[in-house]
């Protein structure tokens, strides 16, 4: 059975010769310009939807959609405080399909933030940040690159948020940059550097614009390429480790191959990888073309279709033009920062600086704190992992709800009216309580199971729950004056300022 397509005129542009069998087709991946970055063969396990959910691919496709739609938007926008808002208005009402371009770009951006987060959750939960046994593997470092990509994605989205120059944009950036200002000692300087002045103005707009359309995408592209190159150097997706273990237990087979593929073509002689008994067995794998390429194509098309359909139904809001004199009520940051804004509501220092700092540092250090090598590529590793995932989830749920309840029912300043020290209110706050509960969870689970992987699973699951709950609270349950409202309660009507 041959799965190869007939070679047409177009095909000759990309193929220097015509493969005669599936085997040859797989090898030919190396000789093809568009496909050379894939391995010639790929394991069935790493193709499994259940394993990777293709979230990394989806993130990349979304980034491509954003790049293309962003270039079109660049033709239709000028980053000037006098004009920016009116260009966006024109996009919505005067430019043919301008509204659609904006919606695609906006929904694509939100989906990309979500996809990158989910991708990180998946990689963590399957233990795919572990080094494994392939020669030259360094998955821990690739995880760090991934954390960098997450930060870049958030920063890209945040810089883009300002560009419509409406009330939503203006105040989200005012609040966001003031969070940066709560860094001790140099906070004001950081804020001034971000804004290019003392307030959000023309300097800020041009800074954010250049970062958004040029600098950050460039850096993100470079690191994304590095990230994907490392997947190859790390010996493929982490689930392949399970195959390597199995292969090593098998009896040694006939002498190893005498040639190996390199990116540049056929290299003569053997290489370390070829002689490694952990090399993936041919019976476990299929040629990348067409088995991987068609799947990637399907994921790409599916992502495109979802974005295009969502763009038809989800409007991109545009409020009144930015007005530094009137703060909308409530004023909210972008949704992925609303969990943070909820914490900042308790203490700017702990919620805005200490917790995000610890979370980012903790994320980056996960593969170095947990070096256990068992169960790489398996969801939640083992039975104990699954049990502690449940415990962590419940723990996170209880403490997050508890901290929120304390924050809402017992505002600290009203509980201790006689205390004036700001440090006291920074330290004794629901945000600190939540942070401490995570520290306790980590060390308790580490003590009980004496497994760094299990402790990491418990803490990470609690983190996911807290992140989701806080984001939901900040998005849905906070109304005017940042007061708490249940979803079924109506917000009081606000006088409209003129």
């Amino acid at each position: 059975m041959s799965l190869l397509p007939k070679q047409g005129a177009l095909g000759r542009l990309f193929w220097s010769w015509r493969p005669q069998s599936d085997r040859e087709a797989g090898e030919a991946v190396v000789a093809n310009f568009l496909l050379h970055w894939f391995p010639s063969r790929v394991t069935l396990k790493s193709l499994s939807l259940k394993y990777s959910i293709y979230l990394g691919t989806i993130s990349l496709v979304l980034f491509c959609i954003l790049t293309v739609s962003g270039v079109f938007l660049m033709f239709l926008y000028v980053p000037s405080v006098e004009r920016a808002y009116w260009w966006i208005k024109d996009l919505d009402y005067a430019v043919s399909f301008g509204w659609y371009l904006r919606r695609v770009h906006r929904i694509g951006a939100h989906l990309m933030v979500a996809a990158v987060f989910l991708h990180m959750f998946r990689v963590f939960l399957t233990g795919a940040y572990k080094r494994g046994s392939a020669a030259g593997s360094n998955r821990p470092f690739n995880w760090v690159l991934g954390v960098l990509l997450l930060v870049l994605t958030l920063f890209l989205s945040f810089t883009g948020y300002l560009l419509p120059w409406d009330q939503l944009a203006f105040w989200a950036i005012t609040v966001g940059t003031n969070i940066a200002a709560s860094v001790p000692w140099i906070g004001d300087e950081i804020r001034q550097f971000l804004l290019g002045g003392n307030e959000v103005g023309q300097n800020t707009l041009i800074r954010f614009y250049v970062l958004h359309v040029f600098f950050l995408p460039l850096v993100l592209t470079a690191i994304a390429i590095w990230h994907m190159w490392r997947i190859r150097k790390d010996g493929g997706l982490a689930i392949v480790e399970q195959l390597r273990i199995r292969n090593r237990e098998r009896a040694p087979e006939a002498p190893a191959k005498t040639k190996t593929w390199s990116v540049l073509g056929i290299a003569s002689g053997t290489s370390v990888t070829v002689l490694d008994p952990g090399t993936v067995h041919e019976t476990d794998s299929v040629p990348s073309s067409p088995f991987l390429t068609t799947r990637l194509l399907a994921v790409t098309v599916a992502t495109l279709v979802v974005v295009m359909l969502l763009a038809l139904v989800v409007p991109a809001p545009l409020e009144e033009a930015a007005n530094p004199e009137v703060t909308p009520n409530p004023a909210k940051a972008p949704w992925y920062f609303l969990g943070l804004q909820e914490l900042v509501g308790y203490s700017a220092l702990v919620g805005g600086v200490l917790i995000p700092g610890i979370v980012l540092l903790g994320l980056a250090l996960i593969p170095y704190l947990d070096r256990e090598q068992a169960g790489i590529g398996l969801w939640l590793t083992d039975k104990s992992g699954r049990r502690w995932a449940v415990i962590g989830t419940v723990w996170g749920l209880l403490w997050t709800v508890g901290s929120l309840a304390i924050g809402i029912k017992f505002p600290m300043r009203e509980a201790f009216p006689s205390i004036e020290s700001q440090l006291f209110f920074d330290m004794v706050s629901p945000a600190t309580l939540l942070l401490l509960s995570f520290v306790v969870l980590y060390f308790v689970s580490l003590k009980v199971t004496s497994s760094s992987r299990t402790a990491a699973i418990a803490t990470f699951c609690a983190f996911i729950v807290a992140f989701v709950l806080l984001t939901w609270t900040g998005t849905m349950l906070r109304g005017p004056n940042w007061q708490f409202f249940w979803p079924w309660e109506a917000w009081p009507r606000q006088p409209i300022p003129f």
Partner: protein
Amino acid sequence: MSGDKPVEGESRRGFITKLTGWVLGIGFVAGSWPFIRSLFPNVLYEPPRRFKIGTPDAFQEGVHFLQDHRMFLFRDGSSFHAISGVCTHLGCTVKYSPFKQDQELTVRKLTYESAGEFHCACHGSRFRDEGTNFSGPAPRPLNWYQLELSPEDGQLVVNMSEEVDRDFRLVV
């Protein structure tokens, strides 16, 4: 490398390597400096920090929100003071909400008749009408700005770059 003194030869090579490294490193930092420095503006085209707001008799008794400057002007008989409208938490503009009835309050061991308080929309901070934060995450009281009378035309002058303490009053 001379045969009898290998150590000297090695250290010379080492020295030159280090020197190259240092020259390149310092050169890179020095070369980047103009680019980095250019991002810190020397001139800001922002509204002036010291400005006239009109003659004292243009303001009636009570509180006035000067929207363009995000500040509140208080008049109590012949005494004036100015409080910033920028929340000390994350920089949103606070709103003055008057009480239905004046309340007797004790703030900083001083008892006075208060006519309202400030609310911030972003994270629900609240301030007394003399600026003291008493609820929510705001870490500091609202800023008080210096008020002067212009000797030329007798207008009130607000100086936002001069903060004053909460006992400041301009009596005209």
